[in-house]
């Protein structure tokens, strides 16, 4: 089955500003502003740590984030990498992260 992997955008593509408990983000390619709540900024940070343009699967990202975070989905029976993949795909649809299909 084809699986998506994800990568952070280059630094110049995003402007991020903390506003109280939220984060405002300006996406340069679209000119669209989004307001982000937890856990989105952390997801972006985690991908950013891997490096812009370096693709990682949700499982790989999960492994890396596990150093700092306890990751929880709605249902313990659901594999967390699947849930994380859904979240990342949503961000990819907005252009906030890059995605590509793995062979």
């Amino acid at each position, binding site marked *: 089955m084809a699986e998506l992997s994800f990568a952070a955008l280059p630094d110049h593509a995003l*402007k991020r*500003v903390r*506003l*109280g*408990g*939220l984060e*405002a983000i*300006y996406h*340069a390619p679209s*000119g*669209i*502003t989004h*307001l982000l709540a937890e856990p989105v900024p952390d997801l972006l940070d985690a991908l950013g740590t891997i490096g812009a343009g370096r693709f990682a699967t949700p499982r790989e990202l999960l492994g890396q984030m596990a150093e700092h975070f306890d990751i929880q989905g709605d249902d313990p029976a659901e594999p967390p990498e699947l849930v994380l993949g859904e979240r990342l795909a949503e961000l990819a649809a907005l252009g906030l992260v890059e995605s590509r299909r793995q062979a």
Partner: protein
Amino acid sequence: MRHACFITVGPARFRIGSDWRAPIDQLRALYSDYPMDEVVPDFTVRLQSTSALRRYVRPQVAIAGDFMLPDAVPLPLEQGLLAAEMAMNLQMALGWRRHLLLHASAVSRHGRAVVMTGVSGAGKSTLSALLAERGWRFLGDEFVLLDPDTGNIAPFPRPISLKNAAIAAVEQEVDDDTRFGPVMRDTPKGTIRHLRPRAEWVEQMARETRPALLLFPRFGYPRAVRRMDEAESFVRLTQASTNYVALGDRGFDALTGFVRSVPACAIDYADGEEGAELVERLWSEQGVRAAAA
């Protein structure tokens, strides 16, 4: 066009053309303190008849110009002045790029400004008019122009558009009757009367001020004050700005910078008197805090 005039307000220059004389005469009277040189304008506004016949028979003023909107309904010629004001606002709303435009009023004291934003009818216009009669400098009642480079506010002191009950309330405060424009009844927004800003505010309209307080007033509710956090202010202001998206990252920088540097409150008040008093109180609390910092 047959009749025309030029008007400069703050940094913006308008050329207004009309098929009729009356609206131009009214504009000249209302804007007598403003520069009226024939310069290359930022915007052209046209007040034109809806058809050749309608120029003479129950004349209707269609609003047109560099920037136009669908759904605009023509106004009867008696409301031509209102049509001109609307058309000028429309040009700013759709075409201005030098500042981040906020649908808000503003007054200042000692070079520091209170910005008041809210939907039509929230009372921002009346509040600014009342405060301006009590020692504040009037910066504008329709648009606040935020300079993306400096974070300052460029005054845009148009004649204040008073509506319905607010007309009587402000008439009580202003001694000089010549500052009022004609009363226009049965407009789409009810009765409207313009108040000319004092000549000194117009003379000072090139002088920018620093924003110090952001308020979201709401008129006609029991008195209440609520601190508003940066994110909520930010989202509300994106919706109160007509050119936020058009300015791209400059708009983002300007607006995030603004909400992070200026404290914000939502205020409810029952009448203009209470509103003005609330603003004064918040202002002095703000001043104490600023001085302590």
